[in-house]
């Protein structure tokens, strides 16, 4: 029977396939004991399952490549260590040998024992290690019940429906030709969702009815943009699927033609369009799509999932490669922006902070580790010998912070010149506007900087006091809140008055439907991830700047999100 289930679109794209349902490994077993003469065989079964789980983990690690490997490898390593844990193993063996429990029940008992201790911890970070334990126990449990032909089938033509999915697994499944993923839990801002978008794998999260309403083998249509899942689609659904599919194909062909088109509005104004890029493929894509430069290169990716901080030379090579890759177009290198949402696998940032979003992050962290900051700045300066580099500092709040970094930067540059190390002639220095205080006072520190970049994700989060990854606050975090629009308008006006170049590199810039909004507010330079570059260019080319300027006043009078959305509709209709 046809059913339509709603979730949240996490990675756009359309897929038609058959369901592969994976129920979570809930170890809700009743007490299960075994006969004394079965102990040896049960121990062997447990041992084999643990070995199988271990093989899977090493297999996964071997298959990962590139940046993904760094990010995920560390979790896998932790999971291997948990599997090999002598206490865990001895406890399990003892439960089977002495307690004469089945391997399954022993797993449950052992898990519950450890979970009780973890749950009692008063530290969130350590409490969340329980997830790692559950992941490992789940893997062993799955191995205990695996039929010999499982996993050999491949996933071509299939759509995975699961409780949740780990980032590492997603990468692996995509390689096995999986078509799409639907999860009951999760958020579009989770690590898995970000990876799904990178893999161009359609994904729906938060589809609460998925597990109870989908059976293995059901035909499914997944619309990752709308977050809509159709189970057992009827003729109408299939017709719609074909139409949408054709539209997507057509759109792709249209966008293809936009690669060489100028980023110019209907009424002839040229608008800046940069790319947010750091990996080699992204840099290549940015150049191929005609980006004006790299508006944001996040240096964190060099630090993620590492046991050691990359040294100056390693950083220099990465930055230089990006500069060379952009063939003379400017590359904006942002100093380390580790903080609350990225701390988990970096080893550098604070994990024990009671309020990490308001703590030691961004430039605050850098200034507290001068050695680290100096190495970054020197590496950036050295890269500037190979093409235009713009140094960008995140999370500034006060003029003093900007001055402190600038003084260091210039002292390091002078020193490098003295030592006859080649660096660029001009050092371009800018700051990220993410803290509302920095947005309100741009004019007061504009004399210190050559440009500014707006990180709308954090700016909105701080302005609205709403965590963008908080599931229950879904409706509250919105870039279309009137306060956000008025603040941006004021910010762009200050930049214009100071003659300071400013661009937006947050998610808002990459949202094609919001392009008229940003243009009306006064933005003239966008920086977006390469995947959104052509769509944003298309939206800019469709816009009439003069008309939008005339509508700015009515936009600033909006009193609620609904008003803003109606304003956008009117602009589209005009």
């Amino acid at each position, binding site marked *: 029977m046809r059913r339509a289930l709603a979730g949240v679109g996490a990675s756009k794209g359309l897929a038609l396939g058959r369901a592969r349902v994976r129920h979570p490994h809930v170890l809700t077993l009743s007490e299960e004991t075994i006969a004394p003469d079965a102990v040896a065989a049960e121990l062997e079964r447990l041992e084999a399952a643990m070995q199988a789980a271990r093989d899977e983990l090493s297999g996964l690690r071997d298959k990962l490549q590139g940046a993904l490997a760094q990010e995920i490898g560390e979790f896998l*390593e932790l999971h291997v260590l*948990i599997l090999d*844990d002598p*206490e865990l193993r001895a406890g399990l063996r003892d439960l089977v040998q002495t307690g004469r429990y089945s391997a399954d029940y022993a797993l449950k008992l052992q898990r519950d024992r*450890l979970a009780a201790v973890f749950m009692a911890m008063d530290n969130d*970070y350590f409490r969340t290690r329980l997830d790692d334990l559950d992941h490992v126990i789940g893997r062993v449990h799955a191995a205990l019940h695996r039929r010999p032909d499982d996993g050999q089938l491949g996933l071509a033509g299939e759509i995975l429906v699961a409780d949740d999915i780990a980032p590492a697994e997603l990468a692996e499944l995509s390689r096995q030709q999986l078509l799409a993923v639907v999860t009951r839990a999760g958020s579009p801002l989770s690590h898995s969702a970000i990876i799904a978008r990178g893999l161009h794998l359609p994904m729906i999260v938060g589809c609460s009815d998925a597990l109870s309403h989908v059976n293995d083998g059901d035909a499914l249509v997944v619309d990752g943009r709308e977050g809509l899942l159709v189970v057992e689609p009827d003729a109408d659904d299939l017709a719609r699927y074909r139409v949408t599919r054709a539209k997507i194909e057509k759109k792709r062909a249209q966008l293809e033609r936009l690669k060489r088109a100028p980023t110019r509005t209907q009424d002839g104004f040229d608008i800046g369009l940069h790319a947010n890029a750091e990996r080699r493929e992204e840099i290549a894509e940015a150049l191929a799509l005609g980006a004006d430069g790299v508006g944001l290169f996040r240096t964190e990716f060099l630090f993620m999932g590492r046991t050691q901080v990359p040294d100056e030379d390693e950083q220099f090579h990465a930055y230089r490669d990006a500069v060379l890759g952009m063939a003379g177009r400017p590359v904006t290198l942002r100093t380390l922006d580790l903080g609350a949402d990225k701390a988990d696998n970096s080893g550098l940032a604070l994990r024990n902070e009671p309020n990490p979003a308001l703590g030691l992050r961004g430039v605050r962290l850098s200034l507290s580790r001068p050695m*680290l900051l100096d190495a970054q700045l020197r590496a950036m300066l050295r890269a500037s010998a190979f093409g235009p580099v713009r140094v960008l500092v995140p999370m500034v709040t006060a003029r003093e912070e900007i001055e402190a970094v600038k003084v260091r930067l210039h002292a390091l540059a002078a020193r490098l010149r003295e030592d006859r190390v080649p660096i660029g002639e001009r050092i371009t220095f800018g700051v990220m506007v993410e803290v509302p205080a920095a947005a309100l006072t741009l004019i007061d520190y504009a004399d210190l900087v050559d440009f500014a970049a707006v990180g709308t994700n954090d700016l909105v989060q701080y302005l609205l006091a709403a965590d963008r990854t908080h599931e229950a606050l879904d409706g509250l975090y919105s870039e279309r809140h009137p306060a956000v629009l008025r603040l941006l308008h004021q910010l762009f006006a200050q930049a214009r008055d100071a003659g300071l170049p400013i661009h937006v590199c947050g998610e808002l810039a990459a949202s094609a439907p919001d392009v008229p909004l940003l243009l009306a507010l006064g933005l003239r330079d966008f920086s977006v991830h390469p995947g959104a570059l052509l769509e944003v260019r298309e939206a800019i080319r469709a816009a009439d700047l003069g008309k939008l300027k005339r509508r700015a006043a009515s936009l600033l009078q909006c009193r609620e999100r609904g008003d803003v959305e109606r304003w956008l509709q009117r602009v589209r209709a005009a």
Partner: protein
Amino acid sequence: MLERQIPVVNRLGLHARASAKLVQLLAGFKAQATLVGAGREVNAKSIMGVLLLAAGQGSSVTLRTDGPDEAEAMAAAEALFARRFDEES
């Protein structure tokens, strides 16, 4: 048997990565290793044990090593703590 009190001086305390390093390091020695902190005593060769200790920065732990290479194991572990688990520049 050797016993030493070791201050946890790295910024993050015994978080997952630091714990993993300690466990991996001690796995290379024959000596038994026990970590005592916050009224709890755990096997220092067990990742779950060390994680359960959850020693934050500023606290100190007591490490006991017992076995043929107890001195080497102790020295290596002390050095790892002193190096702040190689996590800071």
